[in-house]
């Protein structure tokens, strides 16, 4: 049970590195962006996991809930805004990829580099 308490963090580590692998190893630019959003999701998960209190509940007061235990609201605030920022920045990245496709005719990194060398 002691080790199971760290399971959430292991999932974070593995997800983070799956995203990282997609960013460094894949040459397709859309795939890199997908990897980036996996990476981002892993970080979201870490923050929310850290804010959880065992036996706690969502930090929203309700009638008839005196001295209930609440989870930490602060990480939730940070991640809530980060999700919307994340989709906007992903859209910006996709915009850049579309422009690259229009100019180079490909979205594979090594082909783009070859065209640049010429």
């Amino acid at each position, binding site marked *: 049970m002691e080790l199971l308490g760290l399971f959430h963090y292991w999932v974070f580590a593995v997800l983070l590195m799956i995203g990282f692998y997609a960013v460094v190893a894949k040459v397709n630019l859309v795939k890199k962006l997908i990897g980036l959003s996996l990476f981002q999701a892993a970080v979201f998960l870490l923050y929310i996991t850290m804010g959880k209190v065992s036996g706690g509940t969502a930090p*929203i007061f309700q009638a008839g809930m005196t001295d209930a235990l609440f989870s930490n609201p602060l990480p939730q605030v940070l991640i809530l805004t980060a999700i919307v920022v994340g989709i906007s920045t992903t859209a910006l990245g996709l915009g850049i990829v579309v422009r690259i496709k229009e100019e180079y005719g490909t979205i594979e990194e090594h082909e783009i580099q070859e065209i640049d060398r010429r």
Partner: protein
Amino acid sequence: MYYVVTIATLITMALALVRALLGPTVYDRVLSVNMFGTKTVLLIAVIAFLAGRPDFLDLALAYALINFIGVLAVLEFFKSRAARRAAERAGDDA
């Protein structure tokens, strides 16, 4: 007693995920995404009552309304792809 439903939903989610991984066609994958969406609605509704927080139902409502958009986007994507290919073929012939 909510546990029975939660466990059934979770197992079905796992089965749908297996279907999404196996394919074989892209339509199977769209089907399992759609199925996964409905299962999430059920799961969230049950968890809301399991945790004794009925205000979580807003989330299930959001999914019930929004999930539809994904499937329609896929349909529109297939249609415009077919139109694009037809236009390309016509362009090649000309």
